């Protein structure tokens, strides 16, 4: 007989009905996105050197960069004038972008970051090309990097920074000690001179 199987089928659907549904009520409730979600690419303009690495690596050719060179006058007299890249335009066409993250990996100066924001649909496809001011605005939505695991090695950058800090601290301490020693020596010399003057006086 097939009755137990049929009853089991009914039981499964009924049990499912009594449980909470798994539907995500998206426009009413925002989804909980996993860390490092790829929503939109944000740009820190100050970090960008217009090196074009991102634009060249982009498989979809969706990054547009225009820049020119500015001359910075020499700071010391008789020195050489320096040149500096100035970013004129940085735009990402999100209608072409395939969210591969290669530009962000390629950027040597950490100018590009993933933001989890994903609600930037447009009615006109041209609006999907985000210019640099808009890309800069996305930067405010970039979350802090995820914390390291509990027993993980500290990040290299932190080690380097700590060493530098220690060195500077040592140096300042040494300087302070030297200064203190000098001062003490001076004071001692002053006192000795004073005493000698007194003795001469008597």
């Amino acid at each position: 007989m097939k009755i137990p199987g049929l009853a089991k089928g009914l039981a499964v659907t009924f049990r499912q009905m009594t449980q909470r549904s798994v539907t995500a009520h998206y426009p009413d409730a925002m989804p909980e996105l996993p860390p490092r979600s790829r929503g939109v690419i944000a740009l820190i303009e100050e970090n960008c050197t217009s090196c074009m690495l991102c634009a060249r690596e982009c498989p979809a050719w969706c990054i547009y960069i225009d820049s020119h060179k500015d001359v910075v006058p020499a700071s010391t007299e008789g020195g050489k004038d320096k040149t500096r890249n100035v970013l004129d335009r940085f735009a990402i066409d999100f209608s072409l972008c395939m969210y591969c993250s290669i530009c962000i990996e390629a950027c040597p100066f950490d100018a590009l970051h993933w933001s989890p924001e994903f609600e930037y649909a447009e009615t006109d496809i041209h609006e999907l090309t985000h210019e640099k001011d808009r890309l800069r605005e996305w930067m405010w939505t970039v979350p802090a990097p995820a914390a390291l695991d509990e027993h993980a090695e500290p990040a290299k950058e932190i080690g380097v920074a700590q060493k530098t800090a220690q060195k500077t601290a040592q140096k300042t301490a040494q300087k302070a000690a030297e200064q203190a020693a000098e001062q003490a020596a001076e004071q001692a010399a002053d006192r000795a001179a004073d005493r000698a003057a007194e003795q001469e006086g008597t």
Partner: protein
Amino acid sequence: MLEVLLRVVLVMVAFLVLPLLVGQLEHKAMAHMQSRVGPMYAGMFHGWAQLVADGVKFVQKEDVVPAAADRTVFKLAPAVALLPYLVAMLVIPLGPGIVGQDLDLSLFFVLAVMGVGVVGTLMGGWSSANKFSLLGGIRVAAQLMAYELPFVLAAASVAMAAGTLSLAGIVAAWQPWWLLWQGIALVVFFVAGLAELQRPPFDMPVADAEIVFGPYTEYGGLRFALFILAEYAGIVVLSALVAVLFLGGWHGPFEDTVGFVWTLVKTFAVAFVVIWVRVSYPRMREDQLQRLAWQGLVPLALLQLAVTAVGVVVQQ
């Protein structure tokens, strides 16, 4: 005269409201059985107005008739599919005296009329000038042939037990222990009814993976809506019949005052089972469908008839 008018209006209201309630129940129950939530926006509260919105949409659509179709039959088919259920509702009693039109032969009348509903689907399949529609229509015909017999035999068993063909009379004669005595007939009647309505798991005529949407393939707009409405009206009629014939209609606590509520509660309980079965089981193959009818339901119905006959003789 006024009373007749009132009864007709009430039946009309029931005919327009109950299928929508069943449809909404199906939307919601099926959604939750599949771990979804179903419609949520129409009507501002849990999508209660979804089917009204659907209806408005269907009305707005263009009325398309295929060039090669048999126009008259094609246009007539939805009405033929829908009207029998309206007529059937007329004679199903909700409570003692609460009935559109009390007939002495109401059981016979309902069964005869329900068979006509299937003809509408058959007409649609035949007149659409579409081979998928035709295949679907022929499957409908085969299904009708196979399941009408156990359907009628099961109903005959109750009529035999009650000694009357009047639905009100059957409810009046009903006693709780009939649930056991007529248990086989209950199952046979319900399953055969599902098959007559082409409800899953017996929806071979509209098997979308094979024949698009069977007889309804060429239909759109209001005519399609009428076919769908006919399906849900069919569920209401079948559920009401099961409730009245086998579950004791208005029998229950305080049946003198709220008897009709009991009939409605039982009807909707059966309608829920119809939906529940739809969600739980996959579609049967055409040969499985036929085998179930001829090798399963017909012998069972005959067995039930024998049991009923013995019971009736012993009781006398």
